[in-house]
């Protein structure tokens, strides 16, 4: 009993720490990656006792953003504008961050492992209806943004908040349709089961990943997910050329850092969900419980723990690749106009999603007979 509680607590803390560190890593990658794309140097000023120079670098690289940015943000004045709703202004950043963080609880980062007689599922919380839970928490994420915009008593903020909530509930629909197509394909709502059924190969070489069965749903979820995370080309809510900073114009210091963290946590969330639904989650191609079986018939035996560790590594590699893809899109595409955004969501993604559902249902019924 006690050991089970301990295992649960450790899993929860580990998943939380992984997410938080991933967001910090993404922040660094975004700053340096955008600099690379735009042919700039990027953040290079922070230095600690000339340590970087001694190591032969102009600065401390990754530590630059991991340390300097938080220290800078958390030591700034925490400013609340006049006439703001103080309570909601204070609450909003956390209302935005919390639903994103708790969604990671149901994401399986690996297969079940057995350590000292205890079977540990590498998933902070295994429900049977994980997919519904994901939709519920994503749906609640709207409030932090909307209320942050409203509580600031600033018109730019309010406009940003309204834009954000309209955009998020519009794209939730497309997202839900994509998730439903995946759930129909695998016949289960449990993310761990979805990962498990993506093991094995077709035709002797093609991994049984969801992306090969539901390519339309993959693209839909990618587009809808990027719109949910409110990043370029869907960053209308914080369009800095029109709205200063949108819903977090009036936020400073650590609360603004929390909003920024929400942004990156959402990027990571979209990446882990796409990995789980479409890229096999923790599955490694051709890796089975007892080792690799390559298409040529070559067998390479591996022990159980090694297989589990490879699974976790594969999960994070896929997640990082998808995160990088989203960051690349951000620095490549221009921003949509608001009517284009709405038309794309309602008149393209939703009908395509419905057609995809009908096609999926047809195939399932035909295959069943």
């Amino acid at each position, binding site marked *: 009993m006690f050991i089970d509680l301990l295992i649960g607590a450790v899993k929860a803390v580990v998943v939380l720490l992984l997410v938080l560190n991933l967001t910090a890593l993404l922040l660094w990658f975004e700053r340096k990656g955008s600099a690379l794309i735009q042919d700039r140097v990027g953040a290079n000023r922070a230095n600690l006792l000339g340590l970087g120079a001694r190591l032969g670098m102009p600065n401390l690289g990754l530590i630059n953003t991991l340390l300097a940015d938080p220290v800078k943000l958390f030591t700034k004045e925490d400013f609340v504008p006049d006439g703001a709703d103080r309570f*909601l202004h204070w609450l909003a950043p956390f209302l935005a961050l919390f639903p994103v963080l708790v969604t990671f609880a149901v994401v399986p980062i690996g297969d079940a492992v057995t350590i000292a007689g205890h079977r540990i599922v590498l998933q902070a919380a295994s429900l049977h209806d994980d997919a519904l839970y994901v939709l519920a928490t994503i749906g609640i994420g709207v*409030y932090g943004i*909307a*209320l942050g915009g409203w509580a600031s008593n600033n018109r730019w903020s309010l406009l940003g908040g309204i834009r954000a909530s309209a955009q998020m509930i519009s794209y939730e629909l497309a997202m839900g349709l994509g998730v439903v197509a995946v759930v129909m394909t695998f016949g289960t709502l449990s993310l761990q089961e979805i990962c498990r059924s993506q093991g094995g190969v077709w035709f002797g070489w093609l991994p049984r990943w969801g992306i090969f069965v539901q390519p339309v749903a993959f693209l839909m979820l990618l587009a809808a997910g990027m719109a949910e995370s409110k990043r370029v080309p869907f960053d209308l809510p914080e369009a800095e050329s029109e709205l200063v900073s949108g819903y977090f114009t009036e936020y400073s210091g650590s609360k603004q850092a929390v909003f920024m963290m929400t942004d990156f946590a959402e990027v990571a969330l979209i990446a882990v969900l796409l990995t789980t639904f479409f890229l096999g989650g923790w599955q490694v191609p051709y890796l089975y419980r007892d080792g690799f079986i390559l298409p040529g018939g070559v067998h390479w035996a591996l022990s159980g723990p090694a297989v589990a560790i490879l699974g976790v590594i594969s999960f994070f590699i896929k997640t990082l690749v998808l995160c990088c893809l989203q960051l690349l899109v951000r620095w490549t595409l221009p921003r949509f106009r608001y009517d284009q955004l709405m038309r794309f969501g309602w008149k393209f993604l939703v009908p395509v999603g419905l057609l995809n559902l009908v096609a999926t249902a047809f195939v399932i019924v035909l295959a069943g007979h």
Partner: protein
Amino acid sequence: MTAWLFGFLATLALVSALGVILQRNPVHSLMALIVTLLVTAVFFIALGAVTIGFLQAIIYAGAIMVLFLFVIWLLNIQAEEREAGHLALKSFGALAAAALVAELLAIAGRAPAPEAAVKPSPAYGTIATLAAALFSHYLIAFEATSLLLLVAIVGAVALARRMPRRRSTAASPAAASVSATGQDVSAPEVSRRAASA
């Protein structure tokens, strides 16, 4: 559901429900309502009705409350002023509330004592059970409801969209003035159409 969990959730639900009616600011009331709905969802999940619980969170807390928020913003409802007077209204409300409480107590007093709690079957409340019931036994009701919702959506879109401007072939001066000012429909016209619909 254990007793302490019930006690905790029930307290939270009651406090947030009181928050809905006692707050002066409509946005704060809305926040309290969202908490109430989420606690209700947790109640459903703790009682085994997992699907209903999640649907409660997705649809009510996640979507309909956003609609409420939009309505509050659209109508620009400000924080309620504390009003004096209306003694007749207040006493009438108090009387009605007292009658409701008396009625509830009378019903609760006559209810038979609960027998031992029934353990639901493992399939109870899962999405598979729910879907099997909806798409077999209640199929006609389910489809009729979805048709009704579709009609409602089409009706709302038809009411909300601008009517195409009529060609002013009619000789009536009203029609001519409408097309001359470039306005599609006058406000009384819209309300009349809404009423007739």
